[in-house]
């Protein structure tokens, strides 16, 4: 079993690369991504698991990176918004004007991407259940709903 006492160097598999990060046992994955690896797409919004702005994919599943310790992510595949390259959901967010200030966008997009990976044919109910873990304060959610539905439908047909 992996053990860390005091500050230590860990290896994280992020966006297909192996990256080294100096962390404390208490440091969150969000902290390691932002402060150690310079991946600032994931945002702190509440650091309490309530807002979803820090969402990344871990082994394909959306995880609030403020609720996961960096050391827990060792040996797992982490994907951040910086690791998405021209995913349809990104274009859908642009086309549908599904953001304004953009601060929640990375987290929303990663949660959407997780949904697209795992439930490409998600019903409205499933989509809402997933995306209710994220907060957007600028838009009305109508735009985000349109964006995710356009991708779910596209991938279905």
């Amino acid at each position, binding site marked *: 079993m992996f053990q860390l006492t005091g500050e230590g160097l860990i290896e994280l598999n992020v966006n297909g690369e192996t990256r080294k990060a100096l962390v404390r046992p208490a440091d969150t994955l969000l902290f390691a991504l932002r402060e150690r690896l310079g991946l600032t*797409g994931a945002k702190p919004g509440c650091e309490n698991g309530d807002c979803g702005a820090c969402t990344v994919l871990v082994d394909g599943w959306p995880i609030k990176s403020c609720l996961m310790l960096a050391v827990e992510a060792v040996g797992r595949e982490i994907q951040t918004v910086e690791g998405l390259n021209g995913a349809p959901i990104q274009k859908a967010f642009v086309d549908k004007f599904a953001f304004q200030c953009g601060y929640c966008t990375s987290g929303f997009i990663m949660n959407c991407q997780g949904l697209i990976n795992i439930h490409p044919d998600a019903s409205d109910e499933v989509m809402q259940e997933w995306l209710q873990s994220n907060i957007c304060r600028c838009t009305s959610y*109508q735009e985000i709903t349109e964006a995710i539905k356009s991708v779910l439908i596209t991938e279905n047909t």
Partner: protein
Amino acid sequence: MTSIAIGKDIIRKEAWDKVTGRALYNADYASPGLMHGVLVTSTCAHGLIKSMDYSEAQQMPGVKAILTGDYHPMLTGPVIEDRPPLARDKVRYYGEPVALVIANSKAEAAAAASKIKIQYENLPTVDKPSAAMSKEAPLVHEHIDQYRHVIPEVYPQANSNIVHQVKIRKGDMNKGWQASEVTVEGEFFLPQADHIAMETRNTRAEILPSGDIIVHSSSQAPFGVRKLISQHFGVDLGKVVVNVPLVGGGYGGKAPIQMEFLAVMASQAVGGRPVLIANTREQDISASPSKLSLEAKVKLGASRDGILQAGEYTFIVGTGAYADSGPRMTGSMASNCTGPYKLDNVWCDAYCVYTNHTYATAYRGFGHTSFTFAVERAMDKLAAALNLDPVELRRKNLIKAGDTSPSQVILTPSRLGDVAQCLDKVEKLINWSEGSRVEIDNNRIRAKGVACLWKTSDSPTDAIAAAIVAFNSDGSINLNVGAVEIGPATKTTLAQILAEKMKMDVNRVHVEMEVNTRVSPHHWKTVASMSTYMVGRAVEEAAKDAINQIISLAAIAMKCSPEDLALGQEQVYLKDDPNIYIDLAHIAHGYKYPGGNTIGSQVIGRGTYVMPHLSSLDRENGKGKPGPYWTPGAQAVEVELNLADYTYKILRAATVLDAGKVINPKSAKGVVMGGMSMGLGLGSRESFIYDQEQELQNTSLRSYKVLRIGEQPEYLVDWVETPNANAPFGARGIGEHGIVAIHAALVNALSRAAQVELDQVPVIPELIWQKREEEKA
């Protein structure tokens, strides 16, 4: 003529940066050697600081300094200076910053902060605005009469909690009441709430050996920050540099200046090194300023035929423990107190009072959401008393050109817009004629509510804006303005205005997203839905200046009179033969003759703007011009209430605004829908909950509930376009307006559905149940 950029759904310039995680916000900038400040906040709502023991904290690893209110004592505030950045001697609200720990890492600072022990001696608290007015009320500030006034028009009353009062006296109330065959009265309460910008407020500051103070902040007011840092730290204005990158939501909450004082103090304490202070969500809710609370009384009188004859309004505005912009909002509410209705006899007393709650600041709508709720609920009561349809009553009384506002501004089509058309359109959008209350089955009722709104800038009379339009050698443009991009695509809208004026592709207008007060031209603040208007006017003027330079130079190059030339598609061409032209690229940095001689140089256009003829409100009667024009509108909501448990669904929400001219339809629609979304949150679930000791209970997003996906209704948005003669392409501000009357429309619908008078927000099922039970008893 067809437009090039105006009226087009241009995708925001920074869109791709935002969907790839590459857009940078203030706390995303790494800075080697950055130190971290963590706040210690008050656990007591009103009390004397008896002792503070930070001996243990000082010994903790990584700790560099611990600041308390004695470190750099000062009082701050945009209207009246009443607030110490760190509490001194006493605390006035739960969450008030009392100490600041600076350490090498955030974890070390937080660990040390938790070791500071503070003892308070509790004082009696002021728990609501009306309680603040009582003669026996505890004083939140003992020396209210000794504070420095930043603006002359603020009138605190000694030995009271009243920090400001605004009076509106228009017409003859006796005459008005005599002509009123029907009168209604209502009392309304709107609690405090939070902005909940997804990016919590954060600032980093450093002081260079040259004495320059460099501030990086998530702020809506970089020039305001610069001014106050300069004043309070005794440094020349030009030596303070404030940088603001993209901001993760503001809604007014990032217009006040709080973190910036603390960050500069922190840097000072560690020899000028850079220090970042970032709020936790809990601090952002409890320590940083929030939305005001309001207790309102509205009395309306009308003749039997439904024509308003008299209106009397009492607003007790709770600004929390410190004034901040509370007095300004109080003025804003009073000067627009009637809503968009014609009333010749108006009496308004608006008081801005201290309570022992988190202090208040600007919140989308600048007080309008609160008083509009009171007015629009009163209008529905009046409609019921007159047995008139609520839409019909409103239509009979809508304000028109030729009428005057409560502060006696003479209204013109340009200044006012056309609220009647807004109401007509919203009535159709929500399909009012099918019935405003329909019983679906034994338990389910569908009902609709409507409400009207208006809002102007309520800005300082000397607020200015400017723009710099600098040409690149390829003929493209760099646009530099002092407005901050907080979300509504302000910078893209300004690029559209510039592209249209230059008759060129908007993709060839490059906009600097960041604001740097040493580089960017001035802009008052990115607030009040005024940036498109104010900065847009400056951009128009800068475009005109640039075009003059371009045409003059082209005239020389083309050996003709400037009058014979026109500009378009990055070419200057002969009006009578567009095939004879010179490319803008060949003159944008001077024109080079075939032999090499060059005349002219870089084309740089400059533009400035100040709103004309604004004036302060008269102390005795409130007369004055609070803004350059109004944006009026009408909103409607349809709900489905379940009588079995009083839960309800918001089915549809509609807004029609007179936007003057819609510059970017998709962005504009999004901003208005977002406003409705926030307003429906306020109407249905959001509020601060204080316990008996006035300790704020819901400081996290787990307990402070906001709307989430799937809870939203179907949103409907439409426009009226009555141009404002002074505005770029006639465009009126629309940034705030979607929120203003939407919770009034929601609660009008719910009151109709439940057949009880709901006169407060948020309306949760329990409140409906309670009112129904009271009704039965």
